[in-house]
């Protein structure tokens, strides 16, 4: 399994912060613990696809604006498909 790029959790948080502000860290921690059953800092690229699916469902419960949901999940998917060794997003 690919090792987590340095700061993947921080990158996910940074993207989430744009949409959920101060609640971002609690939101991501909840999704990772409840659905991936691991510590948020331990998420890997392999976990990201599953995490994005759960985030898509959760955010859809928070807003009826599908554009925001799509925009948010697309930003996360860019993280998932970002090549190793490249500069972080």
């Amino acid at each position: 399994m690919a090792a987590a790029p340095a700061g993947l959790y921080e990158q996910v948080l940074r993207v989430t912060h744009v949409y959920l502000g101060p609640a971002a860290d609690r939101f991501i921690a909840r999704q990772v613990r409840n659905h991936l059953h691991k510590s948020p800092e331990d998420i890997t690229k392999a976990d990201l696809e599953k995490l994005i699916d759960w985030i898509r469902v959760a955010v859809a419960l928070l807003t009826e604006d599908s554009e925001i949901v799509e925009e948010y999940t697309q930003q996360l998917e860019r993280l998932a498909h970002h090549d190793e060794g490249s500069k972080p997003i």
Partner: protein
Amino acid sequence: MHLTSRAFSRYAGLVVLFLIMNLFLPVPPRAHAFGVDGTQYHVLLFTVLLPLALVWCISYYGAITLYDFARRMEGTPEGHGYRQIARGCLWLAWGFLVPATIRQILFSIASGHPAFQRTAVIVMDYVNLSVPLVAFSIIGTGSRALLEQAKTRTTVYDTKRVVVLFAIIGVLFCYYTFRQLNLHDAASSSNVYFLPGWALVLTIVIPYLYAWFIGLLAAFEINRLGAHARGVLYRRAMQLLAGGLTLVIATSIAYQCILTMIPNDGKLALDYLLLLVYLTEIAEGAGFILIARGANRLKRIEEV
């Protein structure tokens, strides 16, 4: 049973008891002078109080919803701020029912014992004062805590607006209040407040002005929080909450101004005063609805 449902049921029950209590209060002698018998008086009183009672229930629902959200935020950096604001809102919501109950009881006693009228008016003035004094102080503490936690501050422009608004409200309030006094004899209590001028100024006017300044400042701080909250979805929820709190504070100040500038001697007002009371309380109820919506959205963000 959920905290919100339990607490709301208790409050609604007390409101119903308040309405029932009014059906058994003695009819003031002056009612008969208008050809109104006991039953008619009680029906009239019930009709006047029922819309207000509904607004009080809505307001309490908003306050307890915010309190429920604040409880869930315990242990988070924003927890203390939200809790203080929620406590202040609860104080405002109880500030409808409790003073109204005390007022009805005191003035019922006064209608049968005219010598008690003076005591009733004085007690009600201080009971009414306690609501904004405590509520706005607590809300102000909460808004300041949230502002500091968000590393935001009010601007010089905001401060100037607060001062100008406060000056306008303060001058109008003082003008309409001091009109009721005999300014040539500051020690005389022969006025509608039954207090000497100096006591009225020191113990009623100044505390109200302090409370309203704190309230206005809190409203501006909360608005700043709503406008500059980070996160698209979080900001939308915060703006609902901020809008509701601002409306509640503003209409609460207006309501207190009306209560003090137009001294109420316990009579059932069926004129423009009642209309003003309805308008301000309905607007305050609308503010609490916005608070409930904002709090629910923020709660959902913390739950999903």
